[in-house]
């Protein structure tokens, strides 16, 4: 047994597909798409435990066969500047999008999940791409790639947005913080690091040619750390360790301050649905600051596993799974990311298609769904009409530790996408009843300063 998750993706296909993917190193069906895409020769039928052990550097069991098993040579996985901390805390290290990160520590994922919902957890998100963008044309530059209204964004505010392509497909989702009209701070996905870098550099080149000036500074993950402190006690934890007034810092706002003589950035945002902060800081103080955070009562380290189950409950998309280049923001239920001014100006990549979809609708829509009696439903599982016709796929799913039942996201034709509607999901050849559920699945707890 113990070959994780592969079935989740292959369930709708013929056995050929299953065979191709049998040995894929898929540590989790939900979070590790990039590794699952790797095709591994059929004779290397392996169960996940093995692959997981192999990727667990802490146990010193790395096997050279891992590399040879892949059809394409993969680059050496990278580490964040907090890697030693994960190892010392006995994190179960896995390769996530080319980064060695803990999927969990000694505690079970569900326990860590509940801890985050009750107290606070610290996540190392230093693998994400942090970029400083500056110059006098920078607002126009960033708007030319995204759908948000940065011109009218308040200084110190942050916004969730998407890079779109000419077809309206999502190239990545990201958070842009406005420091002032000439300076922005961008955080985007680790798995899209290369694509995002390329996109920004390309556009910088275009701007240069037009005599406009934009400066890009991609922060080195070994020099600049990024951690997320998430949970209802996150604010009091920060107050306890640094001189910072958080009363007026509401959700999606950022402040720069100094800790241990070094500049840090604290943004009230996160990926869990809880109140919380993302802290960007120089690597040289990261260990000390993180330790200070962990020394406060009831604050623990949490890994990618809990991060995934928390964001799922919060109804938040994971790039490469719930959204991708083939999905538009309208289909993904992210129409709210297309700012009013930008709709009027219709000058963002893919505007034509996106605006037309806003007007006339789409052929698929992202929904949340709940399975009351049945197994966890994972990515790749089929969604069926109550009559049994296959109409869509699950893009993320799993057990909800908070709700104690199985929840998922997926795409269905819009006529099936009304709340409370009944549909079927297929898991291992059996169908189970599911209900279309409004997201977030679990009430969010963002701080609005009111």
């Amino acid at each position, binding site marked *: *047994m113990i070959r*994780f998750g592969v079935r989740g993706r292959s369930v709708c296909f013929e056995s050929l597909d299953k065979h191709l993917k049998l040995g894929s190193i898929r540590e989790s069906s939900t979070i590790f798409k990039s590794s699952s895409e790797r095709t591994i020769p059929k004779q290397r039928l392996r169960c*996940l435990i093995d692959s997981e*052990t192999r990727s667990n550097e802490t146990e010193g069991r790395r*096997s050279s066969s891992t590399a040879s098993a892949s059809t394409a040579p993969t680059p050496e996985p990278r580490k964040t500047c907090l890697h030693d901390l994960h190892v010392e805390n006995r994190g179960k290290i896995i390769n996530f999008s080319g980064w060695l990160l803990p999927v*969990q520590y000694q505690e079970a*994922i569900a326990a860590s*999940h509940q801890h985050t919902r009750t107290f606070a957890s610290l996540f190392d998100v230093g693998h994400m791409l942090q970029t400083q963008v500056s110059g006098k044309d920078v607002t126009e530059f960033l708007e030319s790639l995204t759908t948000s209204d940065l011109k009218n964004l308040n200084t110190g505010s942050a916004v969730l947005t998407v890079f779109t392509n000419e077809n309206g497909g999502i190239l990545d989702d990201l958070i842009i913080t406005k420091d002032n009209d000439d300076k922005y701070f961008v955080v985007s996905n680790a798995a899209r690091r290369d694509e995002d870098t390329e996109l920004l550099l390309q556009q910088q080149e275009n701007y240069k040619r037009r005599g406009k000036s934009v400066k890009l500074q991609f922060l080195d993950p070994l020099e600049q750390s990024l951690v997320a402190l998430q949970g209802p006690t996150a604010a009091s934890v920060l107050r306890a360790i640094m001189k910072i007034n958080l009363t007026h810092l509401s959700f999606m706002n950022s402040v720069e301050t100094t800790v241990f003589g070094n500049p840090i950035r604290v943004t009230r945002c996160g990926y869990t649905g809880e109140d919380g902060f993302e802290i960007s800081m120089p690597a040289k103080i990261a260990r000390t600051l993180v330790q200070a955070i962990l020394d406060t009562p009831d604050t623990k380290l949490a890994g990618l596993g809990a991060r995934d189950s928390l964001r799922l409950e919060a109804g938040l998309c994971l790039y490469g799974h719930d959204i991708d280049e083939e999905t538009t923001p309208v289909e993904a239920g992210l129409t709210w990311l297309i700012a009013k001014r930008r709709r009027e100006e219709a000058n963002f990549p893919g505007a034509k298609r996106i605006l037309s979809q806003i007007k006339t609708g789409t052929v698929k829509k992202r929904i949340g769904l709940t399975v009351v009696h049945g*197994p966890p439903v994972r990515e790749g599982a089929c969604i069926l009409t109550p009559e049994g016709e296959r109409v869509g796929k699950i893009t993320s799913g799993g057990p909800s530790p908070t709700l104690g039942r*199985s929840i998922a996201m997926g795409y269905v034709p819009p006529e099936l996408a009304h709340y409370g509607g009944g549909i079927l999901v297929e898991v291992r050849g059996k169908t189970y009843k599911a209900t279309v559920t409004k997201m977030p699945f679990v009430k969010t707890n963002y701080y609005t300063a009111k």
Partner: protein
Amino acid sequence: MAKVIVQMTKYTAKTFSHTSREYLFNFSAPKVSLYFSRSIANSRSLNVERFYTEKHEWITVDGNIGIIGISNYAQEALGDVVYAQLPDVGSEIEKEAECGALESVKAASELYSPVSGKVIEKNEEVEKTPSLINTSCYERGWLFKVELNKFDELKGLMNEKAYNEFLKSDPA
């Protein structure tokens, strides 16, 4: 790992009678007594050798009945089991064929039968309380029982010692 398993085995063997008595004290409903007597029947398997597959299932055989579960190594790797899908009673299963699944928050993993035969019972306690697989993978967390029809299949399985070696030698 090897040591843990060995110790666990010794531990369960030693304390089994106590555990059984605890059940008696804790639950007095007639249904539970039934379960209790079943546990006793299971306990015979403690004297029987446990065999393992490379996919980390174990089987003990008493007469022509095999009891199947997953190893301690497997339950640790899987993490907290939140859902157990076991083969239906009466179904015929093939050796190494997929016959169910165990799911944790992290992932789903398929269950393969170590032997061919007919499923004569599944552990409904485990279906209701999948965490038994974590807390007692060799006892209360057994998964299903099979009426064996190919005894030769047992020859290909590892005994405790071989399995421990297998774990040590890095299955990769």
